[in-house]
Each structure stands twice: as C-alpha cells, then as structure tokens.
C-alpha cells in the first residue's frame, strides 16, 4: 500500500493546486498564515454537504490518545494505528484519507464541538434548529415553516440581479435551509427527469401549449399563497431545467468521479458552478449516519463515500479554475453519544465537528473539542455555537448581514482568508 506521503505526491490536489508539497506535516496553520493576502474572489459560492442522521463526530475526528475515548467506546473505538493523525491528540477516521491532502494544504478548517444550548435528541427538531437557525427554549421543540437560513440569505440579495438559478438543491425534496417563497430554488432529483416534455407529434401546438401553461402559472387565482408557491416552482423549473441541461451537455469533468450518489450529485453542482454565473448556493446530502447498530462498518462506508466525493469535486472545480470561488461546509443535526449501546452502535448525541473546505479557508482546528469527562447526562457539552459558523460564512465569505439572517449576534470565527 502506498504511504500517505507518496499518495499525496501523486494526488490530484497536489497537481491542481500548483503548490509545493508541504514539508511539514501537519501544517494547516502554517499555510494559512501565508494566505492572508489573497485577492478577493469575484464570485462567492457556498456548497453545503449535509450528513443526515447524526454523524458520529468522535469517530470522524478521533481523540486517539484520550483514555476516556477508549473507555466509552469499547469495541467501537478506532486505535492509534488506524487513524490519520492531525496532531498528537486528534486523528482522521482512516476512510477520510481522500481529504487528508486538503488538510495538509491548509484548505480544511475543522470547527470542533459545535452545537447549541438545550440540544434536541430528535432528528427532526434538531434539523429544524439548524435549518432555520432558531434558538431552542429548552422546553419544547418547535418545528415550523418559513424560510431557512440560506433562503433568508438569498432573499436579501437584489432580486433584479439574482438570476434564474441562484441556488441548486440536489435531491428529491427542497432542503429546508434553502426554503424561500421569494427566490427560485432549483431542485434537481435526477438529470434525465429534469426537463419539460413536449408533444413531439404536434410541435407548433406544443409550443403554444407551453406558452399558455407558463402564463397560466403566472395568473393569480384566488389564493396568493398557492399562486406564489406553484408559480415560483414552475418558473424555477422552466429556467433551471434549461440551464442544468445545457451545462451538463457542455461540461467535461477534469477527474473521474467515484461511482456514488454523492459524487454524482456534486458533479451536477460542479457543472452549475462552471456555467451558471448566478449560482450562490449549492446543497447536497448524504443519508445513513444514524448508526444505532453495526456502526463500524456503516460509518466507514459513509465516510469513504463522503471523502472521495468531496476530493473529486474539489479537484474538478479547481481544474476548472474555480478554486477561489467556492467554500464547502458540512453539517449534521447532532453527534452521537460517547458511550456505545449493545447493538454495536451509538444513540443520538449532541455536539460534533463542522468541516469547511476551500482555498480561501484558513485551515486548522478551531474551537475546543468537547470534553469526554465532563458530560451532560452522558452527552457531550458543545463548545462552539453552530450559528458562529453560519455567521462566519455569511459575513466573512458571502458578505451578508449575518445578524439579521440569524436573529442575533454570533461572533464569526476567523477562518476565512479574505474580506475581513
């Protein structure tokens, strides 16, 4: 097997980044220091990768020298020789090797122990908190409708210049973070289906038919809410389907993407990034992180799919010259409980890490890791509010008024190189 170092030399990332091979390992922070003077990029795109089901933070970034970790995790613990060290306390899950080069180059920031007060252990309540950036009151979960935090970001942009496809959401339903009535969101489930069929036999009639249908969807019909919902979706469908199809036909990936769903979804975003000048936000999700049972195998497979897909995507967009225009952020509704259950898995927990990738990201570790000895009813106590991470990407990366969007002031983390 290749050593990690020699793998790194051959990796796509080493080639495209055009940088020298790092002589110090790890050296995220050192690289970051050189980065402070990078020119601001004209486009700022945020790509969200959601890890659905509650990713096990402790087996993602492993405290491999902490005895408490081994006491709590037992058979589910990863051993020091398995992990890829980040420093002498923490290491990557071995299946994250594909993204390790991004860490080495200082392109990966890890915010540790993210969470919020009064954590919910319900997937849906917790997701709702993250998606709509709400403050739980500690008593009752409030799942509601309304715009998501990224929907609110899009809503405050100038509607006359926002364009037809400001956001691409890959999946069969709209990600609630992106929910907005005022902004067209393109939800792409599969490329083949993402087009409007015509009546091929009666072409002229079919054209008039489309004009009529389009106009019909713009005609108010006694129910402003429904008119807006249906009319907006139809317009987004019409514009988005043309844009996405044309981009796909014209795009040639610079790398071979892994044969996985996540990679396929990210490829659609790469196409959008390259051809769609209006794109501001992209969203993909990978499910299955709810590892109540058989965790070692299942979690490993998921992290492999995640890291390989992100590495390929990053290499591809870099090869197309967009490396300064994109920041990728991960999130998951909660981490998992430190002690394992009897089914070879872990139950719902609280705090976990957030990853941010990008050329403009100052790589390194941020925030404090959650303590394994000072627990709250068996669960981790968060150390960084997730909304500080949102504030960071909103204010420091997208240049948006974070306080308004997040309903309060959350201190940004200095992990973006430009636009201070």
């Amino acid at each position, binding site marked *: 097997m290749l050593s990690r170092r020699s793998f790194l030399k051959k990796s796509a990332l080493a080639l495209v980044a055009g940088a020298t091979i790092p002589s110090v390992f790890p050296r995220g922070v050192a690289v970051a220091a050189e980065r402070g003077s990078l020119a601001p990029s004209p486009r700022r795109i945020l790509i969200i990768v959601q890890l659905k089901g509650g990713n096990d933070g402790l087996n993602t970034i492993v405290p491999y020298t902490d005895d408490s970790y081994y006491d709590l995790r037992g058979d589910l613990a990863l051993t020091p020789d398995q992990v890829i060290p980040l420093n002498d306390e923490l290491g990557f899950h071995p299946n994250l090797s594909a993204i390790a080069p991004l860490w080495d180059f200082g392109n990966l920031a890890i915010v540790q122990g993210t969470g919020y007060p009064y954590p919910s252990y319900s997937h849906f309540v917790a997701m709702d908190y993250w998606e709509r950036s709400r403050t739980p009151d500690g008593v009752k979960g409030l799942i509601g409708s309304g715009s998501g935090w990224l929907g609110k970001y899009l809503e405050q942009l100038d509607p006359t210049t926002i364009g037809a496809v400001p956001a691409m959401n890959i999946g069969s339903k709209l990600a609630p973070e992106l929910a907005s009535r005022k902004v067209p969101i393109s939800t792409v489930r599969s490329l083949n289906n993402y087009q409007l*069929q015509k009546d091929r036999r009666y072409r002229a009639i079919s054209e008039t038919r489309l004009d009529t249908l389009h106009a019909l969807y713009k005609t108010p019909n006694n129910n402003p809410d429904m008119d807006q919902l249906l009319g907006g979706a139809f317009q987004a469908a019409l514009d988005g389907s043309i844009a996405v199809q044309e981009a796909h036909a014209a795009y040639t990936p610079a790398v071979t993407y*892994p044969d996985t769903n996540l990679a396929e979804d990210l490829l659609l975003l790469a196409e959008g990034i390259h051809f769609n000048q209006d794109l501001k936000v992209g969203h993909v999700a990978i499910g299955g992180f709810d590892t109540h049972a058989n965790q070692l195998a299942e979690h490993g497979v998921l992290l492999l799919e995640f890291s390989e897909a992100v590495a390929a995507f990053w290499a591809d967009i870099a090869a197309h010259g967009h490396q300064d225009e994109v920041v990728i952020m991960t999130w998951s509704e909660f981490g998992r409980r430190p002690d394992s259950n009897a089914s070879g898995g872990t139950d719902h927990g609280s705090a976990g890490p957030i990853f941010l990738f990008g050329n403009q990201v100052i790589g390194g570790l941020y925030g404090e890791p959650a303590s394994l000895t000072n627990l709250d009813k068996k669960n981790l106590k968060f150390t960084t509010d997730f909304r500080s991470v949102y504030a960071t990407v909103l204010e420091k990366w997208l240049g948006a008024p974070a306080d308004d969007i997040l309903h309060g002031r959350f201190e940004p983390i200095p992990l973006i190189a430009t636009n201070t």
Partner: protein
Amino acid sequence: MTPSQENHTDQSAGSPSSITRRQLIKGATALGLSAAVLGPLLAACTRVENTMTVTPVPTFPPTPAATPIPAPTFAPRPSPTATFQPTATPAPVSQPTATPFPTPVPKAATIFEADTSNLTDRQKVSHVLRRAGFGYSKSDLDRAESIGLKATINELVDFESVDDSALTKRIGDAGLDFELRSELRRWWFLRMAYTKRPLPEKIALFWHGILTSGLTKVGDNYAMIDQNNLLKDRGMGSYNELLKEIGRDPAMLIWLDSRLNKKKAPNENYARELMELFTLSPGYYTEEDVRESARAFTGWGTKGQKDKGIHFLFRTGQHDNGTKVFLGEEGNFDGDDVVDIILRQPQAARFITTKLWEFFAYTDPEPRIIDHLSEVFITSDYVIRDVVRALLQMPDFYSQKAYRTQIKSPIDLVVQTVRAMGFDDNGKRFTRVPDAMGQTLFDPPDVAGWPGGEAWINSSSMLQRANFANSVALWMSQINSEGVSLPDRDELMNLLLDGVPDPAMEAALDYFEAETKGEDSFGIQRAILYLFLAGPALQRG
C-alpha cells in the same frame, strides 16, 4: 432513526464505491494530462461559458417575463367574483340509509345541521371523495351528487356494506410477483385506483406516513406486505390496539431497531419515535422517559430469516423486569403498559386528531376543532373510524379553508387522474410515476414519513407533474385511437373543476384556442387535456 435516502431511494444499502486510492490515483493521472492542456481547456470553457446563458421561454404576450414575482398575465375576467357560482343542481336528496348515522358528540353541529360552506352539492361530494378517497370517474361523481353528501359519507366510512369483489378479481388477474419491490407498489396502486372502498386505503396511506417503515432498511418484501395489511385492516379501528400491533410488527421491529433493544444496553430508537412521531410530539416527555420506556420494550424481537417469514418474538431473557418511572407512573412496565400510559396523556388524543385533520382537511387547525375531535376520540375509546366520521361531518371540513387548498400528494395526483380519466389498466405504467415526484411507497424518506403539503412542490416535482400530464394526454389518445374525441373543454371543466367557472383556466383556454386556430384538431384536444392536468388548479385538491 433510519438512514435517510432522500436523494436516491433506489440506493442499495451498503453498496457505495469500493474504490479507494486506486481510483484517486487514476483521477490524478487523468488530471496530469489535463493539467498539461489546462490553458486551452480553460480557454475553451470560457468560450462555451459565453454562450451558456439561460434562454428564457417565450412568455405570453401581455406582460414580459418577470421572474420570480408572479404577475397577472391574463386579462382578468369581469364576471365571476371570488365566491363560487353555484351551478343549477338539485338539492341533495336525503335518503334513508341502512345504518343509522351516529352523532358521537352532541355539542358541535354537523354540516347537515349548519351548512356554512358556500359550496355546491357537487363541490361537497367531490371534495369528500377526493379527501376521504382517491377521487372519482364521471359516473362516480354524478352518482355521489345524486345520493347526496350524507349517503356518500356513509358509504365511505361504513365501507363494509360496499361490494368490492371486482377489485379482488383484478388483483388476482394482475399476475403480481411479490419478489419484486416495484410489484408491492403496483399492488397498492391497483387497490387505490380500483377499490370501491377507498377510505381504508386512504387511512393506510395516512398511517404509512406515520407508523412508517421502509424497504431500504427492512429489506423484506413480505414483512412490508404484512405491515401494509395491518395498516389497512386495523387502521380504522382502535388506536390503542394498532399501536400495540405495530410494536410487534416485524417490519417495524427491524426499521426502528427494536429487535436490537436489549436489557444490558437498551436501544432507544423505537421508544423515542413512539412518543415523538407516533403519539405525543417533542415537549411532552423527557429524555428520562425515553430511556425508561426503552427499557420497557427490551426483549421485543424477531425470529425467522429474511424472505422466509419473520415473526415477533418476545425474548424473556433480554427483557428488563425492573421498575421503570415513566410519564409520572411507576411500575414494572412492558411495551403494552407504555402504550396505555401514553394514551392516558391528553396530548395523545390531540396529537393524532390533529394529524388526521391535517391529512384530511388543512394544516394548523383551530383549537376548537381539535377540542371536538379529541373528545370524540376519547369518548369512543380511541376508535379512528369515529374520528374520521366526525371530521367529515364538520362544517369546517367544507369551508373555503379546506376546499381545494391542499397540494395533492403524488399518489393522490396519479390515482385521482387515473380514476378521472377512466383508465382500465394493469397499473404497470403508473407505478413508478409518483417516485419521480418524490413519493416512493414503501420507502419513506425517513422515519417521519413524507413532510407533505407544500413540501411536495419544488422545481423538480413540478416538471414531473407536468410530464405526467403529457404522458396521460398521450395514453388517452392511444386508448381512444385516432379520430375518437378526447373529453372536451366543457366536459373537463365539469369533471375536474366541479363545474365551477375558473376564470384563469377559461382565459388560458381562450388564448390557446385563438392561437392554434387552423391547427390539427386532435392535437388541440390533446393539448387542452394537458393544460387541465398540468395546470396549477389540478395540483390542488
């Protein structure tokens, strides 16, 4: 909870790529080449980029395309006002019915005593047939209008009196192969599309969104069939019994990991979702209640092998016989005790009656509606049928807030269209259609089922809804063969829009007919059918 397969429901569990470094090195090699030609490549990309602007679809003449704010496009018609214009229909004929019509709670007046709805009789029966069933053919609707609302509701609710043998024959003739997952969907599709007893199927669909399980994790077609039968056969009965049954249901035991719930280290998945998603909702129990009730369910497991019959098995040795403190009560509780204790919480009745009202009527019901339905529910000892009967009789069910205000689920859209168009079909061509719109039966996106309502609508599902209309227009032409006329504009208006003038639709059709004057008349008919089915009005029901 369970792996959420939102993006790709066909993703086979545990089979992502096995490629590791090899693949990446391959990519790197490929990139080495492209790096050498990166300059020209990027130049080429830039060239293409310049031509890649989004081409706006030509918009209807009166106004320029204005994205994303919808603007009035058709000249508003002067005549019909916001209220519906009743067509000249006879008053409902009240017929003596075989079964007496019980009014479980005296307080709230029924639609028969206080009709404040403003709907025509045809609108009322069409509404109840859409919501409590899967729509109607022209003859179904005409018949319902003639027997009246009361008799229509009685036939739906007291369905045992209705002969459904034609369905049994159709299912038998369908040649279903239950080894295939898609055949489970065809099986259920045929039942929904062709049963004369639609309410139990509708209730099964309701429960499938709540007491849900998914093939992706369960992995056993027969277990899913059993669960589906349970939801249909017991779904109108006692909620208490249904909850006790679902806790022993093999598909559920797999789906929420109950079978892994052992005395030594309880697995909380089932206990949590029982309270969060099936009975109470967050805020009505504590984390301690989750832990304690998980102990009560320890030992509820399965026996048997996949595809060879999986059954419930109580593993005494894995059951925790200790004392539990749960929702303020203390004792050596087992799973059935937990269900009984939960149902003693006032919130349990409010929770499920709200779910029922939202499924059948509209979201965010007024508290007085839930007060009434909860009372009916508790008085009837938790019988679902009594609540459904009561809600179908409430004047609020026929209010402007309820009438045609729901986004049709993909299943409703497809099955109602099949019924309206009178397709006599084996179901094969329809089975996969709802998948593309975001609803794959037997494979919910996660343990909370489908979010439903407005969440059905996004740009992707919008395209699929329009494309389904295109397919239906084509299939109808094939069935009717050339020269045979498709339903015309007035017939469609009467069938699909309850015969009530729809100014937007009328304006659109006037425009379309003017613009296509002189074109092939069959092509025009086909397009008119498409415009009805693909238009905004029929996305609501």
